[in-house]
Every structure is written in C-alpha cells, then in structure tokens.
C-alpha cells in the first residue's frame, strides 16, 4: 500500500506547478488573487496529504525506540 501515499506526494508536486493560473488576475471574493487563493488551498491540501501519510505509511518500526516511562515529559 506504500504506492498510494507515494503517488499522492507525486500528484502534489505536479499540482504545485499550476501553469493554468500563471497570468490569471481574477480576484476571488473581490480581494484574493486567484493564484494566491489556489496556493492557500494547496497548503491545506498539503496538510491533508501529510495526515494521509501519517495514517497510511507511518514508520511504526521506529516506535520501539520509545522511552520506557513517560516521566520528565514537557508540554
């Protein structure tokens, strides 16, 4: 199943090169340039992609290096 998060990352890299809005000066809601609105949405999508990565491809084998007791924990 590792191909799924890997593919998602590749799609995100491709989506970053948004040639389609390169010269578009449309204002979304009258004050946000569409190119900025797109990348604002892209950042939210990046966060969701990271959530999928953490859920689907978390390196669980590394967790065995967790400390035994949870003392000395800070906020």
């Amino acid at each position, binding site marked *: 199943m590792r191909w799924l998060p890997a593919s998602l990352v590749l799609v995100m890299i491709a989506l970053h090169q948004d040639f389609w809005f390169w010269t578009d000066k449309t204002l979304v809601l009258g004050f946000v340039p569409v190119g900025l609105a797109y990348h604002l949405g892209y*950042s939210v999508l990046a966060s969701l992609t*990271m959530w999928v990565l953490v859920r689907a491809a*978390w390196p669980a084998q590394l967790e065995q*290096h967790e400390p035994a007791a949870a003392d000395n924990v800070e*906020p």
Partner: protein
Amino acid sequence: MISAVIVFGYLAVVLYIGIFAFRKGKATREDFFLAGRSLGPYVFLLSLFGTNMTAFAILGSSGMAYQRGIGVYGMMASSSGLIIPLSMFLIGTRIWALGKRFGFMTQVQYLRDRFECSGIGTFVFVLTAAMLVPYIIIGVMGGGQALKAISGDQISYEVGGAVVAVVVMSYVFFGGMRGTAWVNTFQTVLFLTFGAAAFLLIARSLAGFDDAMAKLASDPHTAPLLSRERISKEEFFSYMFIPLSSIMFPHVAIMCLTAERIDHFKKTIIWYPICILLIWVPSVYLGVVGASQIQGLPPGQADSVVIRLLTMHTNELLAGALGAGIMACVMASDSQILALCTMFTEDIFAYYGGKKRFGDRAQVWTGRAFVVGVTVTAYFIALALKDKAGIFELAIRFAFSGFAALAPVMLAALFWKRSTKWGVLAASVFTAACVLGTWYLHDLSTGIAPRPGQPPVPVFPELGRLFLRTPGSVTIHGYLPVVPMVLGSALLMFLVSLVTPPPSRKTIERYFPAAGDGRSGVEG
C-alpha cells in the same frame, strides 16, 4: 520611546525564559544540548517551526511580494509546506530513532559511524559549520540595525548589537536546548499573533482590501503583481528544491533529536503547512497591498513595506508591539549558535578525547564557553564588517543550496545500505565546489546584472543561455543552481557508491538489521 520600552520588555522576557530553563535543567550533556530528549508535542512543533523561520518570513517575503507579486507565496512558502514536513517524515523520524538507539547528538556522529570514516565526518563538519556561521553574524547585525531603527537612532548600532548578542548568548548559555526551544516557541506565538494582528489592523484601516486590489488591477504597472508574470517557470520550479535544505541544517537535525516520543512528529508533520500558511499569507498579501499604498520603494527598502504600512495605519503602542515582533524575527540565530556549539563539543572536543579526559560536566562547560566565544566573535565581525551585510546575506542564500545538495547524502545513508563513504565524499566535495563556483559566477557578473523587470543577461555570451544573470542570481539554463546541485549530488552519491567497496557487513547489519530490504537504517 514606547517602542523601545516594549522591545526591552520583550528582551527581558526571553532572558527570563532562559534562566527559568536553567533552573529546570540538569547538568548533563544530553540535558543541555538536547533538553534531555524530552520535549512535548506542542513545544516541539512550535520550536521546530520557529527555528526554520527567520526575518525573511515576515520582512523579506513581504518585500519580495511588493516587487514580484503574489507568486512569492507559491514559490517559497507552499513548496516548503510540502517538502519540509515530507523530509521530517522521511528523514527527521529516522534521525530521532538513531539518536534514541545509538545516542547520537549530531549528524556528523551518525555519518562517521555509518560510513566507518572519521575524515568524512570532519569534512562534513567543516562544510556545515562554514555554511552556518553567516547566520550567526547576520543575527547580530540584524539586532543592531533593528534596535537602532526602533529607538529612532537613540541606541547606536554597536550598543543595539551588543544588547541582542548578550541576551541571545545568556539564554543559550544558561538554558541550552530547553531555553532555546522555549524561546523559539514564544517567538513563534509572537510571529503568528503579529502576522494576524498586522493583517486585521491594516484591513480595518483600509476598510477592507477590495479597493487596494482594484487599484492594483487597473494600473498596467502593478497589475502583474496579482499574478505570477514576474516569476519565470524555471525559477518557480527551482524553488521546490530549496526546502530540502531544512532537514540538513544542523540546528534543525539536532532539534529532531529533542522530541520525547516519535508520535510528537505527527503533529509537526500535519500542522507544518498550516503554520507556514498563517505566517506567509498575511506577509505576502500585505507586501502586494503595500504596492497600492506606497509607490517606488527600491529593492533595498522594499523589506520595510509592512513596517511602513503599520506606521501609516496604527498608533505608537502597536508600533512598539511590532518592534518586539521584528526583534523576534532578527533573533533567530539562537538555535544556530547552540547547534554550532553542540557540533564543536560532540564532533571535535568529545571525539578527540576531551570527554574521556574531562568527563560529561566539563563537556557542558566547554559548550557554554563555546557559546560565549562564538557570540563575542560574531559581534566583533558584525562591528568590523558593519557595511558588508550583503556578503553574509549572499552566503546564506548559497548555504540554502549547499544544504539542499547534501540531502541525497542523508537519504542514501538512511535508506540505501550499498551507499559508501566515497559516495559521501564525492557528493560533499561537489557541493562545496558548486557553492564556491556559484559565488564566483555571481561576483563575476555583478557588473552586468539587469535591473528588476529587465530580461536576464548571458554571463558568457559564447556559451549562449547556459549561465544567465538575473537581478538577484546566476541561473543555469534558467534554473537556479540548487537544481543541478541536488541532482548532481544524488548522481555522484549513486555512481561513486556503486564502484567503491561497501561498508563492512557488521556496520550494514547494525543499521539494516532486517538485512535484505535495506529500506530503513533503523529497523532493529
């Protein structure tokens, strides 16, 4: 005067945080250099993010947006919002696990052991330390300039620089990593609050941004700021490679070792793009709004556009709070000082016998002495080269490309058991040569650099468009040097490793105990 009082209040708070961290700490090297590997999820997220944020995040990004438009966000911020958490996911978690398992405190310790070679580690130490030093000097210079400006020239550059240097030195000296992480957390909260407050106050004063945007759109000189017309596709693509540098910066890699649990990475990885959004969107947007309010700022002054907007639209009290925000920006050199000190004490002092001879406690005090030494040296360099800040700013830009080009080395070390020390050496020497070569080309072509908005100029006309000089940099076929640097480093790492003897079986089994798949260096 009110501004200066608020800024001094801010400096007192960060000093107190450092001293409070000192009282909470223990006199061991793990506690001083890594906060006892015990940071909780929120401090870890905010301090790691704060470590990555510099004055450029607010002041530089708005200045660049003022000149080049909204594309600056996509080019520099949203690419970081994908690549930095991805590198945390792939590399940061592995570095953390190696630290827990083998007790590593620096990247060099890992590379020395992984590739069974002391010289490789020393070479990487020299290379990374050289690329880190300009940050520390710029931090002192920025502090002196900011305090001078905030106090209305009542505090001189020399005194301002000394005040900032002493404050940073004190909380790093006393608080070590814990103090630095807490101060970074406080600064990040200040960044976020400052960005939101500036955005809302200016919006209220302008009664919304609709008119400002309409004004920009109606003028053919400013309309391109609403799109990406002033950024080439090659440059936009190139910036996707720059955030690879983040995880290779020693202060970021060392910060990865401070998490108490691996689970703490989850919040950082997921929320990092949102933190970037919250800081960068207001900065870039206000930079563009500034173009509708203040015309004709030259490149050197464009970075002050948000400060000018706030001065126009807020009162003195808020300007003072703004001053504290600016100080938080320019005081980002704390983690670099601590990282350099950790590297020196671990990779040089302890490695060459100091720890064995003098013990753990002496190592902490050596680290503290090094903090004082580095800060005092940086201060005197900042005084001596007061008018040469441009050199260090340039060095920082090249350092980003240099650290990005070292990312394939770390990826190969962690995921490819066949990678060799000769591959690391080839990639590292190539990186160093490229950084020097880029600097040479930049210097050589300074006289022919076009003005902003003008087309690039060939550096060597007989080579056609191979090396082009743009207003700010030299490009290779239109791409920033970071692209061939990362690809070349990866290729050398691969090819040279293939034709040289692999590490011993013992080392491979130590780092790839699942022997066979070779996917992760810490699976045992």
